[in-house]
């Protein structure tokens, strides 16, 4: 699964927001590298996991400052390339799935047109061919009646269907790196698994690198090869998903421990005793 050459290298990444009350450091020195594998980034709200993903994608808000010793995708230094080069990468070689298809799809454009638009932005293809490829892609995300869904607007489909359309749109340009930010959190549990199965199969078939950002440690560890645990803008622990049971950091252990589990009676539930030195 691992290529010798890393697909993505992140070293000492910082994302800083200037606010009225001073600088807020959302990400403080995050480092990791990614091959053609599935990497999970886990943390609670405010841990900086989403900002890490956004900085890699290049969609950090303009008022924030991104800096890093190294932020390289396939050898390309993402921080020094021109905006137009960055734009050419975005959606083409690096793609991103967001949490809620209700907000991430354009409400006034049919699903088909959105997928075709992505494809035609990055590749010179005829309209007829683009349509064919969009229909194929919809089929690949297991939409049973792609021709019908192609002409629907996002509000006419369910959350699970919308998220599949989103995956189709993101995969159509054949990206090498996919960043999925809470891709299933807005979905029902049973639909969640369908969407994860589709994502899993496509990532494996196409040999993509995947960054799976989530608050759900258990879900991430069952899906990913490796897990990065973030707390207060920093990486507190990196480990193989299969070795999560042997997590060392008290935050990781606490997070695993505090969730109710079917068949394990614990009253009261253990709670996390946050230590100031974790954030130091």
């Amino acid at each position: 699964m691992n290529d010798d050459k890393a697909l993505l290298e992140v070293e000492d990444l910082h994302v800083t927001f200037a606010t009225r009350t001073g600088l807020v450091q959302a990400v403080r020195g995050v480092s990791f590298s990614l091959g053609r594998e599935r990497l999970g980034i886990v943390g609670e709200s405010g841990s900086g996991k989403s900002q890490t993903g956004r900085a890699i994608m290049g969609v950090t808000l303009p008022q924030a400052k991104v800096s890093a010793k190294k932020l390289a995708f396939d050898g390309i230094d993402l921080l020094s390339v021109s905006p137009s080069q960055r734009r050419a990468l975005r959606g083409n070689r690096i793609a991103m799935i967001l949490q809620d298809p209700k907000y991430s799809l354009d409400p006034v454009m049919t699903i088909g047109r959105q997928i075709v638009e992505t494809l035609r932005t990055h590749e010179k293809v005829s309209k007829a061919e683009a349509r064919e490829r969009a229909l194929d892609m919809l089929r690949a995300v297991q939409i049973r009646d792609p021709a019908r869904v192609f002409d629907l607007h996002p509000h006419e489909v369910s959350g699970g269907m919308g998220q599949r359309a989103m995956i189709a749109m993101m995969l159509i340009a054949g990206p090498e790196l996919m960043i999925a930010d809470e891709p299933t959190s807005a979905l029902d549990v049973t639909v969640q698994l369908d969407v994860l199965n589709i994502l899993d199969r496509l990532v494996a078939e196409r040999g993509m690198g995947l960054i799976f950002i989530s608050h759900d440690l258990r879900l991430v560890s069952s899906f990913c090869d490796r897990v990065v645990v973030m707390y207060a803008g920093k990486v507190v622990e990196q480990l193989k998903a299969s070795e999560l049971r042997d997590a060392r950091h008290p935050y990781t252990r606490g997070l695993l421990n505090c969730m109710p589990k079917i068949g394990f009676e614990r009253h009261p539930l253990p709670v996390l005793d946050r230590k100031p030195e974790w954030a130091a």
Partner: protein
Amino acid sequence: MTAALSVEGLEVVFDRFRALKGVSLEVREGESYGLVGESGSGKSTLLRAITGLAPASSGTITVNGKVLGKTREKAFYREVQMVFQDPYGSLHPRQTVDRLLQEPLAIHGIADGEKRIERALDEVGLGKGFRFRYAHQLSGGQRQRVAIARALILEPSILLLDEPTSALDASVQAEVLNLLEEVRRRRKLTFLMVSHDLAIITHMCERLMVMQNGEVVETLTASQLIGHRVSEDYTRNLLRASEGFVRV
């Protein structure tokens, strides 16, 4: 054991959409009862119909032996209170915690407000320091504690909980669940709790009802669910899904 809350053949219709199709349920006094199902299954609508926030077109609802009419009397809200899912949406952003807690007391003309506010804040683990803060100065977990304090301040006997922790981080969720268990034990409350998370329901409730498309799929005890002794495929699917992702 008497029923604290019973619902018989409840129907809720929005225009032509039947959100609840004749649902019946009985919650015993002091019991904690769970409702599970996917979005659109009608579990929240059931809670809202009980409080009068959703229109019931037929069926009867009985609370502590009294059959409810079309409109709810004030006395009903002293018996039954609700905690909503999203503490970012359920607390007025321009009111202090004090003002938020005063409101139910003013509506019901309760005199010893001062003492009750202090007690309620204390009970949810916030203390006096939070009394004159605004909701936006509080974290999600603290807000949900305020929402619970507001529900408790009228000293109800039944608490309706609509996904009370799903907007919270896992570690904060544990704290709020512990708090809910503690107040239930101390005040001998009856809970009717909605969640999409089977693990939370088995942790918090003795019995539960699985719903789908506005109908009851089955009712189970928590131990039946834990032992996978379920009879419907739909429940089995939910159980499987709650175990996380398995690569095929």
